């Protein structure tokens, strides 16, 4: 996906170089996802096993509890749903959310 907020060829470092360390957070990979992990807060025990396993650091935890899933970076791999010991996470087809806006809005 390309969007208007992405930079033009005159504005980016040459040669594809990344001149700033640790900037991958700025690269949003959420649009790669075809299945979305949806957490059932009633079932979730906040054991944080999903937080341990998530390869994209997309389980956002605050004060020892899951605050949210970062859909701007979650690629929908489903590891969280597979590892959850109480089946609190369901993978839902993204088409179900087609008319819904993400937190930052407008991407879906």
């Amino acid at each position, binding site marked *: *996906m*390309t969007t208007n907020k*992405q*930079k*033009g*060829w005159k504005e*980016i470092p*040459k*040669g*594809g*170089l*990344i*001149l*700033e*360390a640790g900037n991958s957070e700025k690269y949003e990979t959420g649009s790669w996802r075809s299945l979305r992990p949806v957490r059932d807060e009633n079932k979730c025990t906040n054991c944080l096993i999903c937080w341990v396993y998530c390869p994209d650091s997309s389980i956002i935890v605050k004060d020892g509890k899951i605050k949210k899933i970062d859909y701007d970076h979650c690629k929908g791999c489903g590891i969280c749903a597979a590892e959850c010991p109480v089946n609190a996470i369901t993978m839902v087809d993204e088409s179900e959310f087609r008319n819904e806006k993400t937190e930052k809005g407008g991407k879906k």
Partner: protein
Amino acid sequence: MSKNTVAITGNDAAAYAIKQINPDVMAAYPITPQTALVQKFSEYVADGLVKTEFVTVESEHSAMSACVGAAAAGGRVMTATAANGLALMFEIVYIAASSKLPIVMPVVNRALSGPINIHCDHSDSMAARDSGWLQLYSENAQEAYDNTIQAIRIAENMKVRLPVMVMYDGFITSHGIEMVDFLDDEVVHNFVGDYQPNNPLLDPEKPLTYGPLDLYDYYFEHKRQQAEDIKNSKPIILDVAKEFEKISGRPYGLFESYQLEDAETAIVVLSSTAGTTKEVVDEMRAKGKKVGLLKPRVFRPFPYQEIAKALSHLKAVAILDRSDSFGAFGGPLFTEIRSAMMEFGKIPENIDIIYGLGGRDINEQDIEGVYNQLDAIAKSGKVKERIQYLGVRE
């Protein structure tokens, strides 16, 4: 004759240029007809005459990979190859250009296999014409030496920062002995200057990444940058040539015109065949024939406006291609020039002569025959055969 004039092969002349440039790293694998260059340079390394780290690699793929690593790390880096060696390093050749690494590489033109052949044609470097490298073609050993030195300054210019290939003809130039005028070591050292790294990888104060994944959302923008940078190298090539003339007395441009201004017909040809063609031009001029020659030096970036303009007054022109582009409408030089001529209203009649593949000789009679054919085309206005093969048996 100056005190620095020596009789030497093209390979030894290029090796001497590299010795005087004294790069930080040279990673190279020997391949005919480039072998003598690498062998001679490794002698300089063994004798302690250069400070270069010479990396003996197991293949050309590794040679160019080592060059990319060393150049990214922040060193002045060179290599050399030919034909199948260039083909084997092809993946990394593209990566060197797209990573903006100013590596300089003599390519001793040789036919690509198969069938296997070790003699000259331009199929190797022409296959790399879209790789993003600059390409300079040399007529003789002197030009191979001069272009190698100039290539360093062109590649390393901060407005360019792209790798450069310096071509000369396999065996004809690489192994033939000619008179070459060398510059003094100090003159070359001052001309190329100290290496200025740009975004060196080995800087702990400024960590950065070379070669990250670059998908549909940014790859195109990086290609657009490359297109601009290679286009912008043209004035730099001319500036470097002007400076080089000051230290050497030898003028260079984007191409060389020989008796072209008042010519009615002309040949366009690269490298050593241009030398033979000059002889033919002299002989035919002595008989009153208005013939001329245009020898491109810079093939990438292709100076399409300048070449088209220089040819626009002709009645007929033959473009000689020492490589074929199978299935295309002519060889690479022909397609570039015929397309470039669209820039001007008046397009001379034009033919493509594919010649010399796999080292097939082209002699003065062959070239005179081309001029005679052009004369007939100019008089009749008719081209019987647009794309022709010269010197192949029917």
